[in-house]
């Protein structure tokens, strides 16, 4: 067996998977998107741009997604960074492993069940009741963009913590000492040493969370009460309720294109911030 055949054989499972689970379905979706809705639902083949012309009817879903996905990502970053920093730099090494495991523990329970728990926490008898008790009456949390944001941050925080932790953990602590020896104040050490060296972690974490958020549907469905609609929810609706596969495919193709564009712009920005492309482990 030559080196070449062996390589091909080793790549075959992944390659087949990639072809059957990604390339073929995506091609089908692309073909469907030029079709028409069948009378009882489904799709009939055609070649029309009618579905794409109808895209503005889902503008609100795209707007919600393109607003809450970046806001959720940035909020998760701001919350995760100090935590990751603490875990990587400050904490006593003997506790490090335990604390890291605690970050993963929520993943042992399905996100569906954990989001359900938030329905009760954010509902009228949960946090708003506590707030009412200390004098803030009539605060509505559940089924608002805010509750969706809370769910998003809660659900995706661990995904942000880990890449940050890895890049901060790898940081050469002697650089921090050197910086301090040379007379830099702590904030300056942070701004000029720690932050730039953790850009790969920031880039990976943000990318991971942002891409998943763009396709999110469960959290808005449960915590948005059908009022805070993501593109993912619009897709579920088009396939599972109104059964308009052609239009649904057009929305899906558009989402993929929007995602590719946003991610490309994002990569450009990140590389300008000093991270090298190869630092971002996702790409």
């Amino acid at each position, binding site marked *: 067996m030559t080196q070449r055949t062996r390589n091909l054989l080793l790549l075959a499972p992944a390659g087949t998977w990639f072809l059957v689970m990604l390339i073929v379905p995506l091609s089908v979706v692309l073909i469907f998107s030029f079709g028409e809705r069948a*009378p009882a*639902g489904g799709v009939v083949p055609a070649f029309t741009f009618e579905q794409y012309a109808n895209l503005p*009817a889902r503008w609100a879903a795209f707007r919600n997604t393109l607003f809450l996905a970046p806001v959720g990502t940035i909020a998760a970053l701001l919350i995760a960074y100090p935590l990751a920093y603490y875990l990587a730099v400050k904490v006593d090494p003997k506790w490090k492993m335990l604390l890291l495991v605690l970050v993963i523990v929520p993943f042992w329970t399905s996100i569906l069940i954990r989001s359900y728990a938030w329905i009760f926490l954010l509902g009228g008898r949960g946090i708003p009741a506590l707030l009412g008790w200390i004098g803030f009456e009539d605060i509505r949390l*559940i*089924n608002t963009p805010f509750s969706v944001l809370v769910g998003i941050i809660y659900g995706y925080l661990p995904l942000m913590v880990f890449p940050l932790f890895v890049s901060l953990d790898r940081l050469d602590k002697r650089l921090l000492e050197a910086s301090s020896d040379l007379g830099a104040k702590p904030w300056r050490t942070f701004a000029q040493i720690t932050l730039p060296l953790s850009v790969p972690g920031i880039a990976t974490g943000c990318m991971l969370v942002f891409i998943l958020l763009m396709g999110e549907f469960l959290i808005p469905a449960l915590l948005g*009460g059908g009022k805070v609609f993501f593109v993912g929810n*619009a897709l579920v609706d088009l396939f599972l309720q*109104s059964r308009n596969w052609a239009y649904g495919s057009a929305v899906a193709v558009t989402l993929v294109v929007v995602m590719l564009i946003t991610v490309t712009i994002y990569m450009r920005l990140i590389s300008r911030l000093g991270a090298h492309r190869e630092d971002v482990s996702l790409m």
Partner: protein
Amino acid sequence: MTKFNDYISKQKFMEELYRYKRGSVTRRHFLNVTGLGAATAVLGAAVPGLLPRPAFAAGDIGDRVILATWPNYHEPANFEAFTEATGAHVQVNVFGSNEEMLAKLQAGGSGWDVYVPTNYTITTYVSEGLIEPLDASKLPNYDASAFDARYAEAGSVDGQLYAVPKDWGTTGLAINTAHNGGKAITSWKEFFDITRDSFSGRTMVHDYQLTTIGNALKYFGYSFNSVDEAELADAEKLLIDVKPHLFAISSDYQPSMRSGDAWLTMCWSGDGKQLNTDMPEIAYVLGAEGGEIWSDYYAIPKGAPHMDAAYALINFLLDPAVNAKEVLAHGYPTADANTFALLPESLRNDPILFPAQELLSPLEFGAAQTLTDPNRAELMARFKSA
């Protein structure tokens, strides 16, 4: 009760007997402590004729049956009894709309054995080839003559039986009167008007085109089933205008009504009955302009993986004694006279289950065209993503 290691002394037995005679303990307590209850059960089990009769013809039906149904729609104890009698475990999938059920079946591979379609959808399932014709001989508990034809006729298409009636009901509104000075409202006009006023942020509508669009159409006095483009445009305008004032768009409204987050909702009569029973301040009202009357059916999707278990489950649930327990749990009336006879008097005269004739007459059965009309489907999807 299979343990008989403990026996009771003669003296203790007599004491217990006197306590029971004096009335200071219940009969159940007496039978338990003396072991007489267990003894009777053991004796009973030894006599084959006294054993609970399996609800199906003997034979192995497999270890599971998968049921696609609606929220709060069954008596869990009945499923346990079914499993006990047949060995088949009942796995329940819950849906929020007929459109969702249809979409799953159209996509194929649903894996369901039994599902619960509503009257107006059955002709579409037949024309799409998604429903199995029923063999009535496998449903000995189905006594067609005992059913009120109004709630059973949609189960047959061109003389072929496809679905047997489960129960029927109405679609009205449920209002927590405590937030409206103790008063209920009476119409769909008031429903949408109060939502944009004192009930802002407290109202729920179904995640279901038939009822949400239908009741919005009733606001203008149009037919619940309209597919007229101008009338649908009016309904859409109303819904979009109301949307910022809604608490949620969801067919699972009981939790929010019970927690007090929502004060007003579109509501199926059985949910109305369940809510009203537990919280008398929640009233169930039929809109004065009309609205929906419907009947749900048991049916078997084409290619069900556990066909024998499907027949066994439907037959079991149609047993009047079992069905009566279902009605007590879900609060929807059955069209089956045999089951009706087993219901307690209070339920047979219940105004939520059996509304007065003058309230029933303006109601409409859903029309098949609403299920497949592309404009209604897209209107609902637009409303949700607005």
